[in-house]
């Protein structure tokens, strides 16, 4: 990682290992002495929480795969057997299903945090872009996983999402057939989705390593958005942030456990407890909550190809974020105008999610929800392509503190601590 290594092998065995495979040195420099800004707040603990979520999904998923049968005739019953017959199967499956929601909850907080404090700005552009890639992989993994129980929502969700590819001119329907391995979603589709659902988490783990590697070159951003200037601005990662991360992880796990034990189907859809039926579409097809904003964008456009482009473009836009923001100041703490647009963006995302959960012709408070979705989609795009470039040029940021240490300790920071 960056900077000179501070690792000192203390025994002949450690020296022997260090000369051959310097893994202890790598761990020492990345998770022990790594200099970390001393002003990181609660929102910076979600990186660690996300690593925990990935671990939970992999461990529970491997166990579930020991009991699950990827066959259109047997999948639904095998999931029911996990719930009723397998020892603690109910617990492990509910951990996995709610774990996915917790994973996305954490990743959204993590992304909004990066947006608010300008963590995507130079020199951290690649950390952000790798993060967008992880987010995409998460969505693909979650989609494949949602198909596996082979309930009504599994089947029709898979039908709608794979049909998105049929919007591509000329080759679209061939791509859809290629994805299905048949002329409709069926047994072949289920088998390949299971294979990919097992593979992708390990790809995610690999890309997470790149994410952290890229993070450790410039080091963490921080709520002030100013660079680390002296060792006074930092503390070693261990024990300061290992303990802080562990504390907030514990709170997070309490919320996670509350869902698993007291409301395990809170995020689920009752239609998915009906076996898949290729002849009957449920009255309302709703994706999982974490995909609702994009689903609302798709539905708000009355044209197939354009709808798919608008939905896909909303995610592709995120890749360009580091170059769309023209401000020289990172943190919204010092950007009075940007701060208001940021919260407007949060509201737009929540509104889109709400619209996506309603039926396509829903009217609330006399307003057709499809129009709310259109306005919110417009704001989503305008936020990235108009507001971010323009506000960065016209806004007068507040005065930045001289250093992290001065901001944390006041003017006493000038003298070294006793």
């Amino acid at each position, binding site marked *: 990682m960056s900077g000179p290594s501070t690792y000192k092998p203390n025994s002949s065995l450690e020296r022997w290992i260090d000369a051959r495979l310097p893994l202890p040195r790598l761990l020492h420099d990345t998770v022990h002495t790594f200099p970390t800004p001393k002003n990181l707040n609660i929102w910076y603990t979600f990186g660690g929480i996300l690593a925990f979520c990935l671990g939970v999904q992999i461990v529970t998923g491997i166990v579930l795969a020991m009991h699950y049968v990827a066959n259109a005739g047997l999948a639904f019953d095998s999931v029911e057997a996990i719930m009723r017959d397998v020892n603690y199967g109910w617990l492990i499956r509910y951990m996995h299903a709610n774990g996915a929601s917790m994973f996305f909850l954490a990743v959204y907080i993590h992304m909004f945090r990066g947006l608010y404090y300008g963590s995507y700005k130079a020199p951290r552009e690649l950390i952000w872009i790798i993060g967008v890639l992880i987010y995409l992989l998460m969505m693909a993994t979650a989609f494949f996983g949602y198909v596996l129980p082979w309930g009504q929502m599994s089947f029709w969700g898979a039908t*709608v999402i794979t049909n998105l590819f049929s919007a591509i001119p000329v080759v679209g329907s061939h791509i859809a057939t290629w994805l299905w391995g048949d002329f409709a979603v069926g047994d072949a589709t289920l088998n390949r989705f299971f294979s990919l659902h097992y593979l992708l988490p390990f790809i995610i783990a690999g890309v997470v390593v790149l994410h952290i590697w890229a993070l450790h070159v410039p080091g963490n951003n921080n709520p002030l958005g100013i660079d680390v200037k002296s060792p006074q601005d930092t503390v070693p990662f261990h024990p300061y942030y290992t303990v802080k991360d562990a504390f907030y992880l514990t709170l997070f796990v309490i919320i996670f456990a509350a869902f698993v034990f007291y409301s395990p189907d809170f995020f689920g859809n009752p239609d998915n407890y009906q076996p898949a039926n290729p002849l009957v579409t449920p009255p309302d*097809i709703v994706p999982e909550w974490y995909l609702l904003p994009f689903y609302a964008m798709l539905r708000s456009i009355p044209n*197939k190809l354009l709808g798919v482009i608008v939905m896909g473009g909303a995610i592709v836009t995120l890749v360009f974020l580091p170059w769309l923001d023209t401000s020289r100041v990172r943190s919204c703490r010092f950007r009075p105008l940007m701060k208001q647009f940021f919260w407007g963006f949060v509201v737009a995302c929540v509104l889109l999610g709400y619209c996506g959960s309603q039926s396509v012709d829903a009217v609330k408070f006399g307003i057709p929800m499809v129009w709310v979705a259109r306005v919110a989609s417009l704001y989503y795009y305008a936020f990235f392509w108009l507001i971010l470039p323009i506000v960065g040029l016209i806004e007068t940021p507040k005065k930045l503190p001289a250093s992290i240490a001065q901001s944390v300790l006041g003017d006493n920071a000038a003298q070294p601590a006793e």
Partner: protein
Amino acid sequence: MAATISDAGTRRDFLYVASGAVGAVGVATAAWPFIDQMNPTTAALALASTEVDLSTVQPGQQVIVKWRGHPLFVRRRTPAEIEAAKAVDVNSLPDPLAFNHNLAGGEDSGPATDANRATKPEWLILIGVCTHLGCTPTVSTPQIPEGDYGGWLCHCHGSMYDTAGRIRKGPAPRNLEVPPYTFLSDTRIKVG
């Protein structure tokens, strides 16, 4: 013998380019089986056909049977529904092409007139897959109307079809597809 060096390149350059080219072709050739294995197997490709008994279907009623994994709509239209379908100006339709595999010149060789959508006006045979994102549309009846055009409404994203299965409103780009079918007798059809 002294080697001649010219601008045309050396023996090493040739080997470099040649092995690179062969390697690229080799990788592409090796990748193809791994891509093509995803396509439907021969078993899935074998075009299955289904016979449907029409004698029990009442006017105004629709039955759904399964054909090649998809729902198949068999609708016995009432005279009013047929008249409504015939009265539509084809040029005003979002998709003015027939999309009927029974037409001699191919599925899109004619306009989407009612005659080009149903061989016998009373019987409308359609693949029950919304051309937007693949949901199964819900049939409309005088008692329980679905959509504004008396045909079908797709609840997923609000596409509306008329009594000839043509898209009239909503995000679907195409009319409902008419599969290849033949009348074996007055009360029996073979689809596929």
